[in-house]
Structure formats: structure tokens, C-alpha cells
């Protein structure tokens, strides 16, 4: 198959060898699990249990609240000991509503809903419904509710399901290991998803630095002549960005502010496909995920199957703790991951990696003046001009940055990574995007308020007019009566 070039990109030190040959191991069930109500993009889930309730493994603890939301299930059996605020796995570390479950050690399952006898006989809506009930979200890190994406086939004509196994982030090997160890499950999940989407074609894209995963997936795809194409894509960060992956495979470029679905392509992560397999074949909700624990400060780097809600501290302890002092603790990959304020936060559905990086690994240096080398322009996969956008933002001219397309930036981090002056470009862009979004919200709010005020004023004026008219009419009537009385 011919591949198409994508613009720019970088070749970071991948450092995947620390965990790529480590088979997935299961974390022993922790005593306490901290399950935030918001582990996905969209509305937070609404709790359906109360403190003191005894729950079984797989039981719904919080239901999806609205069309874009996802339920939260109990990863093991036990008792709800608290529903309150707990630090979020987010740079702010701000408290967020969390259900705390104390495990009873029995790991007793709830009676799961009977799986569909034949998913391929089910309607797309049924499959999407099952995926929604299972609380499955994009496990690549975006955490968008997968059922919403599976329903796209009902609105748009789709032709391709693209399974994203690029895993272009350095360090991370969780998808690599899932593909190598559970290839058949991923393939089955992909076929079910394709059926729901109504797509004829399934492509599984894997970067060429994962030959074993490519071989395992090719072998699994060949069973039963599924027609699934396993395609090796060049090792080029950010190949795993969905728009860029679609471009590399189809040559088609997703228009700005549109979805790849508008081109007929829906992209799902490989681990998401495996979760769909579990949900449809066994009725099992999403209770755990594979997390890569790595970085120079970790004693034993591992790929761990972690129950959702496990405190990061516990996961790190399972990997032997720290050998050196970590400079940064990252949730996700080093390019696009989030820095964590402490280890006292839970693993959630979107946690693909926990990295403890040493100062040598982060290679942070003092910022120097920009020398306009233009490398950021050359490597920007979105065709933007980071050097100029940064200059605008530094002078607080956000409109200028917006004109240059800062809102089109996907925050892949390539420009910051390559900058010889160590300027935190993505930090600027994230700031600008946040401010511009806030301004837009404010503008809309002001408009709404203005509209309401105007409508109110109009209404008041109308009432006043009606009152004046009534008064005038009454006065005229009174005068008429008076006149009549006088004449009488």
C-alpha cells in the first residue's frame, strides 16, 4: 500500500526498550480505589451509590449523565467509604468529585448482562449502546466516549475504520504489548466496531519500530480471512495524531475544524478495540487498563494492568519505587502527557503511562533568546509558524496569534522539543488557546446577556405602552362619560 508523506515531525529518542520486552503484569488489587466521576471528555458521571453501599465487581457506581458522558464501574467488590473531593490526576491537583471504594478482597463479580450471541447480527445502535454501558472511552489518552464515535456511522457515510497502533509517544509500550499479547482480541474488537460503523475497510496502522506487534496483528488478522490490513507506518512523531495518520494512509487531509469522519474515516485506539471485545463478547465493563510505568527514576520499568482508581503511589511502589530523584512525574507520554503534582492521584481511563523522568532525561535548560532558526516552522506538522505565534503571545497579542492559526495547533510538542533556545512554545500556545477559549465564552455570555436585556427592555416597553394606551382609553371614556353626564 502506498503511504503518503506527512509534513514535518521529529524523531525523538524513543527509549521504548525500557519496557518493550516486559510482558503485561497485573497489579494486585489495592485496598482502596479512588474513582473520579470525570475520567472522560464530556459531562461528569452521576453517582448512583451512597456511602456504606456494598458493591460487586462490575457494578455501576455512577451513570453517564448526558449524551457525551461515560459511566464509572466498580473495579472490584467492596464498600463505598466516601463520595467526596480528592486530588485530580491533573497538573492543578485540584480536588474533584471522587468515589472511594474499599476492596473486600473477594473480587466478587456482579451478574453481568448476557453478552450478545452474535455481535454481527446486532444493530449498530445496540453495539454502541453496549459500548456506552461498558464505560469505554478512547484509551489512547483522548478519553472521548467511544460510543459517540461508534454512532457516527448513523449520520455520515463511512468507509474505513482506522485502528491506531502507531504509539508514537516515546517510552510508552502499553499499546505495543496489548497488540503483541492480545492480538486476537484487538482484531475481534475492530471487526465489531467496523460492523457498528458500517465500514467495509479496516486498517490497523503500526509504526515500524514495533515489528513484533506488526507480525502478531498480521497473524491475528489472517485468521478467518478478515480482510483487515495491517500497515506499517514510518517512525515519525506525531504519526499517531489521528488527522496525520489518516493523511499518511489515505492521502486525504481533514479540513480545519472538521472530523476525520467527514472524510469517511473513523480512528480508534487498539486498546479501545480490545475493551470493545470484552464488552461485547463477555459483557465486561472497562475496569482496568494497561499502563506503562517507565523513566530513569523508576526501579523496575513495567507494563502493568492496573485497576482504575489505583493511586499512582501504589503503582510506583509495585515497580520498586524510585531509584533516583525524579524531576518530573508525567501521566501519559513525555511529548503530550500531563505533569502530575504528586503521586497521590488515581490512575484513570486515560492514563497510558506513568513516567518518572530524571533531570538528564527531561534535559530542561534555561530559556535563551530566539535566534529565528526556523526549525519550528520546518517541523510543525500543522504547517504553523510557532516562532511568530510565540512572539505575539509573549506580547499578549492573542488576536495576532489567533490569526496565525494558534487554534489549529494540536500541542504535539515538536516545536518545543527541537527549539535550540529551549523556549516552551507549546506552553505559550496552550496559554493562548485557554485565553482565547475563555474570551470566546465571555463574548457569547455577553451576547446572551445583551440579548436578554434587550428582550426585557422591549417587553417592559410593550407593557408600558399597553398601560399608557389603556390609561388613555380610560381617560377618554371617563371624559366621554362626563360629557354624557353633563348633557344628561
Amino acid at each position: 500500500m502506498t503511504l503518503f508523506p506527512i509534513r514535518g515531525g521529529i524523531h525523538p529518542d524513543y527509549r521504548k526498550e525500557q519496557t518493550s520486552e516486559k510482558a503485561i503484569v497485573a497489579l494486585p488489587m489495592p485496598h482502596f480505589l479512588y474513582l473520579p466521576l470525570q475520567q472522560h471528555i464530556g459531562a461528569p458521571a452521576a453517582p448512583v451509590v451512597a456511602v456504606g453501599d456494598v458493591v460487586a465487581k462490575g457494578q455501576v457506581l455512577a451513570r453517564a449523565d448526558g449524551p457525551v458522558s461515560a459511566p464509572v464501574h466498580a473495579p472490584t467488590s467492596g464498600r463505598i467509604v466516601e463520595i467526596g473531593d480528592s486530588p485530580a490526576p491533573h497538573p492543578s491537583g485540584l480536588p474533584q468529585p471522587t468515589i472511594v471504594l474499599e476492596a473486600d478482597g473477594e473480587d466478587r463479580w456482579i451478574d453481568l448482562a448476557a453478552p450478545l450471541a452474535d455481535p454481527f447480527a446486532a444493530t449498530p445502535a445496540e453495539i454502541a449502546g453496549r459500548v456506552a454501558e461498558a464505560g469505554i472511552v478512547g484509551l489512547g489518552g483522548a478519553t472521548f466516549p467511544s460510543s459517540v464515535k461508534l454512532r457516527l456511522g448513523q449520520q455520515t457515510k463511512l468507509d474505513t475504520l482506522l485502528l491506531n497502533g502507531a504509539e508514537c509517544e516515546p517510552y510508552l509500550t502499553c499499546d505495543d504489548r496489548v497488540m503483541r499479547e492480545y492480538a486476537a482480541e484487538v482484531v475481534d474488537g475492530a471487526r465489531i466496531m467496523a460492523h457498528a460503523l458500517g465500514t467495509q475497510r479496516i486498517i490497523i496502522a503500526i509504526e515500524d519500530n514495533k515489528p513484533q506487534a506488526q507480525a502478531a496483528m498480521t497473524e491475528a488478522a489472517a485468521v478467518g480471512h478478515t480482510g483487515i490490513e495491517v500497515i506499517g507506518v514510518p517512525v515519525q512523531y506525531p504519526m499517531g495524531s489521528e488527522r496525520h495518520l489518516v493523511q499518511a494512509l489515505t492521502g486525504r487531509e481533514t479540513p480545519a475544524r472538521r472530523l476525520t469522519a467527514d472524510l469517511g474515516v473513523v480512528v480508534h485506539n487498539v486498546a479501545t478495540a480490545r475493551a470493545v471485545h470484552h464488552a461485547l463478547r463477555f459483557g465486561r465493563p472497562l475496569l482496568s487498563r494497561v499502563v506503562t510505568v517507565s523513566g530513569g527514576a523508576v526501579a523496575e520499568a513495567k507494563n502493568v494492568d492496573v485497576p482504575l482508581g489505583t493511586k499512582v503511589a501504589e503503582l510506583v511502589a509495585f515497580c520498586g519505587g524510585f531509584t533516583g530523584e525524579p524531576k518530573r512525574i508525567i501521566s501519559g507520554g513525555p511529548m503530550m502527557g500531563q505533569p502530575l503534582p504528586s503521586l497521590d492521584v488515581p490512575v484513570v481511563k486515560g492514563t497510558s503511562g506513568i513516567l518518572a523522568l530524571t533531570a538528564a532525561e527531561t534535559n530542561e535548560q534555561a530559556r535563551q533568546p530566539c535566534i529565528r532558526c526556523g526549525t519550528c516552522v520546518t517541523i510543525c506538522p500543522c504547517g504553523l509558524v510557532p516562532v511568530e505565534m510565540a512572539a505575539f503571545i509573549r506580547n499578549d497579542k492573542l488576536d495576532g496569534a489567533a490569526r496565525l492559526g494558534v487554534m489549529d495547533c494540536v500541542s504535539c510538542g515538536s516545536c518545543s522539543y527541537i527549539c535550540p533556545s529551549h523556549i516552551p512554545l507549546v506552553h505559550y500556545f496552550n496559554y493562548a488557546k485557554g485565553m482565547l477559549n475563555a474570551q470566546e465564552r465571555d463574548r457569547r455570555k455577553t451576547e446572551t446577556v445583551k440579548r436578554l436585556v434587550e428582550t426585557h427592555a422591549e417587553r417592559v416597553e410593550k407593557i408600558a405602552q399597553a398601560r399608557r394606551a389603556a390609561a388613555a382609553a380610560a381617560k377618554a371614556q371617563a371624559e366621554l362619560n362626563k360629557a354624557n353626564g353633563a348633557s344628561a
Partner: protein
Amino acid sequence: MSILIDKSGPFTHARTSVQRTMTLVLLALVPATLFDVWLFGWPAIFMFAITVASCVALEAACLTIAGKPLTPTLTDGSAVLTGWLLAMSLPPWAPWWIPMAGSVFAIVLAKHLFGGLGQNPFNPAMVGRVALLISFPLPMTSWVVPHPLTAAGSPGFFDSLMITFGGHLGHLDTVSAASALGYIKTELSRGVPVSQSMTHLPDLMDMVIGSRAGSFGETSALLILAGGLFLLARRIISWHTPVAVMGTLLVMGTLFNAIDPARFTGGLFHLLSGATFLGAFFIATDYVTSPVTKQGQLVYGVGIGLLTWIIRTFAGYPEGMAFAVLLMNALTPLIDHHIRPRSFGRTRKGEPLTVKGDDR
């Protein structure tokens, strides 16, 4: 344990730094510089040392006056590079005050008055050279024929001190010479056609190797080319600017030489004479003063090539590279404003692309 959460990612970084970039450029200049030191002897060593030392000293002075920290900037290598490139563009036997005055123009006027590293619109070394050329035309066009360090009759250490600091050339009589470009221009003004005056010049092979009269660093085209290729290989520079500069000079020279060989010198001569290679690989590729996009660099390079050819051919000065670079420096913001890459998912005008079914 203190975990940092002060900024967004990435939390890994390429082994790049301003120092590394500058050091590689300096490294690329070493072979040509060593050859030129041998070629022009002690006076050239003094001139080179004075230029670099003045530039670094002035950088330190400016930073102190501006109240900026010294270490990060002084160690980034940019002042050394400016001094080095300025020295490369000066006559090898220039008296001491020429490189000193040039350093003031380059570091104080062109660089720090505009805000220091990264803020200067004009290439500091070229501002230094052009300001000197206009202010002191005589010492700036007094070329010497090569006096290799090891050759008999070359000035010794003390003679050289007299040349650099004493301002006289002692017993050395056969020093003055014209650069190839200067010679052609003079002869042309006397009515001698190019085709005839060319025969009195060292042949092209000598120009490639560099044993000819000219600025300190511009004579050895071959070693400059080697340095340039090194920078290309290490991806410090891209091919766009040098190819555009040299390609334009080659095309213009060849074309007009074919039209009137008596009036116009050939393309290959343009390529190998003067500061073409030094300018194309080391001066025009200066990050700060050139466009940031590859397409912009092509436009910029063609502009430099064209202006250099025009100045060499029609203007009063025999060499036009420095003027051409400065003129195009002035256009860099304009080029950057108008030539931008196409954003992903958008047309060149910035409108979102359309997909099939949009035209409903």
C-alpha cells in the same frame, strides 16, 4: 521530593542549544581559517585575533550596560561568530583600528542597540564590513598577494606587529594587489573588455584553492565549500539559501556572458570570485536576519544573488555580496509576512478545506 508542574510538555528535549549551533558553525569555519592564516601570515593572525577579541569585549560591555547577565550570552558563541565572520570579510593585513571599528559597528550598533541576540534586523558582521568599506575605502580595498607563513620573504612576527600596529609595510614592496573582481572592474572602466582582462587573472583552479588576493576568508572557495557542506550535513543550514544565491549568480553570469562576453564575466567566475561561497553558506544563512520558511529562504537567496550580480556588474563597488545581504535583510520581515506554510486542513488563504458533499 519536589516535582515540577510549572509548564506544559514536552518533558524531553532534543540535544540542541544555541551554543551547539554556534559551535558547529565555528567548527565549519576552522579549515578555511587555518588555510588563510597560513596564506597571509602573522598580520592576518593579529587582525583575526583583534576582531574576535573586540567583539567579545564589546558584547560583555553592552551586556553590562544593559544590566543583562553575562554568562549565558557570552558563552553562547554568537559574539565570537560575529567577530570571526567579520574578520573573514576584512583585508588580511588591515591595521588594528579597522577590526576594532568594525566590531563597534557590528556588536554595538547592529546587534545590541536593537536588543541583542535574535533582535537585530541586519547581519552584524555585514554591517561592520559595509560601514568600514564606506567610511575607510582605502584600507578596506588594500589587498595583498598571499605571503604564506612558511615562505621566504613573508613578514616575521615583529615585522607583522609593525604592519598591524605601526601602519607601515616596512621593506615589503610587492604587497599591493587587486582582487579579481576589482581588477576586472578597473580594467573595464579603462575600456579593456572582460574577455581580455580575464586572461591576466589567476585561472579558475587557483581561485578554487584560494591562493589569490582578497579578503581574509573569501579566497579559498574549496575550504569554504567544505565547511558549508559540513553545515548542510549536520542540518545546521538547509540547501535553500545557498543554492538560491549561487544558482542565481551562476545563471545571471552565464546568461549575460553568453550575450556579451566583452562586457560581462561568466557564471563560473561569479561563483568562484569574491565572497560568493562565504556569503552563500555562512552569511546569507544567518538565522536571525533571514526568513524562517524554506520558501522564503529561496526568495531571499535569489534576491541576494540577483543584487550581488547587479552591484558587481553595474555599481561602483567591485563586490556586492555584503550590500546584497543587507538589502535583503531589510526585506526579511516582509518575506516572512507574505510567505507562510499552508496550515494543515486549510487553503493557502487560511480557509478550511472542503470535502466532497460540502457543496450542497
